[in-house]
C-alpha cells in the first residue's frame, strides 16, 4: 500500500503544474483564443514567483505576483490577438521565446539562491486514510489547484458565464448578435488563463523544486496544450489528463529501478510519443466536432463590415 500511496502522491505532485497550465489553456481556448505560449507564461510565473519569494521571504506574495505577471502577459496576449487580430500561432511562439528570454534575464542573479519553499501540510483526518491521503499530504499550492479546478469546473459547466464563454468560442458572430461581448470574454479568458499558467510555473519553482534554473519547466507547457486536446475542453478530463501525464513521469524512474533493460533514452521518448498517440486517437476533426471543440479556435473575430 505504501508504494501505491507514494506513487499516487508523486503523480499529483508532478501533475499539478500541468493541471494549472491545462486549466489556463482550457479557459483561454474555450473563448476561441489559442495560446501556444504556455511555456513562456509558465517560465515567467516561475521566475517572478521565485524572485519575489527570495526578496520578501513570503511565498504567498511570490504566488500573488506570479499570478499577476501571468495576468499581465495574458492581457498583452489578448490585446495583440483579440484586438489586433494577430496570428495566434506566431504570437504564441513569440511569447514562448520572449518568456524564455525574459525569465532568463530577470532570473540571472537568482540562480543558486534558496527560498523557504511552500510547506507541505497534511490535512488532519483525510491525511490518515490510506490511498486518499496521497491527495491530502501535499503543499498549499496543490490544495489551491483543487480549489481552482472546482471553480473553473463550476463556472465553465454550471453557470451562464460558462455558457456564454463557450458560445463565444463556438460561434462568435451569433454570440455577438445575441448581445454577448466577444472581445470582453476573450480578453478576460486570456488574462485569467495566463494567470493560471503562471501559477503552474510558480508551483515548480516554489514548491516542486524550490530553486530557479533557466528553462526549468522543461517543455511542460507544450504537454499542457496536449492535455487540453486530450480532455476535449472539459475541466474534469483535464484533471485526469494532467494526473495521467504526471503519473507517466513519476513512473518513469520507478520503472528504471526495476532494471527492465530498456535504454532510459528510449523511455524518455515515451511522454512525447504518448502525446502524439493521444492526439491521433482523439483529435480527429470528427471527434473534435462531436466533443465540442471550440469551432472558431485560433481564428480572430472581426465584426461584419470590418472584414
Amino acid at each position: 500500500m505504501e508504494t501505491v500511496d507514494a506513487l499516487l502522491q508523486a503523480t499529483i505532485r508532478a501533475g499539478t503544474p500541468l493541471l494549472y497550465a491545462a486549466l489556463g489553456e482550457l479557459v483561454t481556448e474555450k473563448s476561441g483564443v489559442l495560446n501556444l505560449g504556455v511555456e513562456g507564461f509558465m517560465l515567467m510565473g516561475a521566475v517572478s514567483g521565485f524572485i519575489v519569494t527570495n526578496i520578501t521571504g513570503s511565498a504567498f506574495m511570490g504566488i500573488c505576483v506570479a499570478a499577476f505577471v501571468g495576468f499581465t502577459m495574458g492581457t498583452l496576449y489578448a490585446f495583440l490577438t483579440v484586438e489586433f487580430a494577430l496570428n495566434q500561432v506566431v504570437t504564441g511562439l513569440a511569447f514562448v521565446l520572449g518568456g524564455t528570454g525574459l525569465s532568463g534575464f530577470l532570473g540571472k542573479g537568482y540562480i543558486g539562491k534558496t527560498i523557504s519553499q511552500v510547506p507541505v501540510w497534511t490535512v488532519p483526518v483525510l491525511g490518515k486514510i490510506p490511498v486518499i491521503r496521497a491527495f491530502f499530504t501535499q503543499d498549499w499550492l496543490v490544495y489551491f489547484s483543487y480549489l481552482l479546478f472546482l471553480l473553473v469546473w463550476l463556472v465553465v459547466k454550471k453557470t451562464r458565464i460558462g455558457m456564454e464563454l463557450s458560445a463565444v468560442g463556438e460561434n462568435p458572430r451569433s454570440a455577438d448578435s445575441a448581445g454577448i461581448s466577444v472581445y470582453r470574454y476573450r480578453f478576460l479568458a486570456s488574462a485569467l488563463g495566463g494567470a493560471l499558467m503562471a501559477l503552474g510555473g510558480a508551483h515548480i519553482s516554489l514548491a516542486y523544486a524550490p530553486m530557479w534554473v533557466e528553462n526549468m519547466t522543461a517543455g511542460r507547457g507544450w504537454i499542457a496544450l496536449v492535455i487540453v486536446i486530450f480532455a476535449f475542453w472539459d475541466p474534469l478530463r483535464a484533471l485526469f489528463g494532467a494526473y495521467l501525464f504526471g503519473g507517466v513521469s513519476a513512473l518513469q524512474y520507478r520503472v528504471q529501478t526495476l532494471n527492465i533493460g530498456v535504454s532510459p533514452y528510449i523511455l524518455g521518448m515515451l511522454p512525447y510519443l504518448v502525446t502524439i498517440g493521444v492526439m491521433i486517437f482523439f483529435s480527429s476533426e470528427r471527434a473534435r466536432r462531436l466533443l465540442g471543440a471550440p469551432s472558431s479556435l485560433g481564428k480572430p473575430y472581426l465584426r461584419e463590415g470590418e472584414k
Partner: protein
Amino acid sequence: MRKAGLLAVVLLAVALGFGLKVGFVYVGPVGDAGWSYAHDQGRQYLEKVLPGVETAYFESVPEGVEATVKLRQLAASGFELIYATSYGYMDSVLEVAKEFPNTIFMHCSGFKRAENVGTYFGRIYQADFLVGIVAGAMTKSNLIGYVAPHPIPEVVRGINAFTLGARLVNPNAKVKVVWVNAWFDPATEKEAALSLIEAGCDVIAHGQDSPAANQAAQEKGVWSIGYNTDMSKFAPESHLTAAIWNWGPLYVEITKSVMDGTWKSEDLWPGFEKGVVDIAPIHPAVPKSVVKLVETYKYLFQKGEYKVFKGPLYDNEGNLRVKEGEVMTDHEIWDMYWFVQGVEGSLPSSGE
C-alpha cells in the same frame, strides 16, 4: 621558434602593465551550484590571486559548432590562455587551436592534446570514495541511491569509487543507480531521488549539477550527499558531505606556468595532493570514528599512498576484472565502463 615568440608577447604585455588575458568557456550557467559554478569559483580565485590576470567567460555554450565559434572568438579577441571546461568541446578545441597556434588551450576532462593544447582534470573519484565511506557508514537499510546524469566513464568511475568506499565500511551496502539523462534538470532529478527513497534507499547521492536530490532527501528525512560544490545550504539537515571541486589552485598553477613561459602540453590529473578535489564539511551526526577514518584516507590520498581501484575487483555480474595485487593504470581508470560489485544498475551498451 613559436614558443619564443609567445614568450616575447607575454613579456611585452607584462612590461606594458597588461596582464594575461584568460578566457573560460562553460557548458552550463555559472550559477548552477554545480560543475560550471565550481569552475567559475576557480576563475574568480585566479583573478584574486594573480592580480595582473584579466578573465572573461562564455556560459551555457552548447557542445559542437557553437563551442567552436565561441572558442575562436576568444582566441581572436586576444585571449592568450583559454580554458574549455567540458569534454564535448574536445574536437572544437583542436580545430581552433590549429588556427591559433600562439594561443594556449587547456581542455578539461579530454585526452586529445596538441602542441598548444593541454588537458587537465581532477581525480574526483578520490573524493567520491571518501563520501562513499560516509554514506556506507550512515545507511541503515544498506541501500544507497545514486541519481546519475549520463552514462559516461567519468560518472561510472565516480559511482564505482563511491561504491567501493561505501562497501569498505559496510560490505552489505548496495548502490542503486537511476539515470536522469541530464546534467541539470531539477524537477526530474528530484523525482528520481524520490523514487529511490521509496525503493528503500536512506542515503541519496548524486552526480548532478543541481541540489534537487539533496532537497528531496531533506524533505523525506533521509541523508544526502552533494556533488560538485558544498550543497549544504540547500539541505542543511540532510547534507552529510559532498565531493567537491576546487579548481582555483590548479588554475593559478597553470596560468602562472603560462605567464613565466614554462607551460608545456601535458595531461594534468591531480587529486587530493594538489587540493583540486576535496570534501565538504561533514555533518555532525556522522560518528567521530567515521570522520577519523575519512580523514585518514584523505591523508593517504594527499600523500599519494592509497589507490582506489586495486584488485581484487569484481564487476556487478561477478566477473573478476582486476586481479588481487594489481592496480588499475590511469589508462584503465580513464575509460572505465563497467560497474563494480555492489552497484545495482545497468549501462547502455557501447559500440564496441
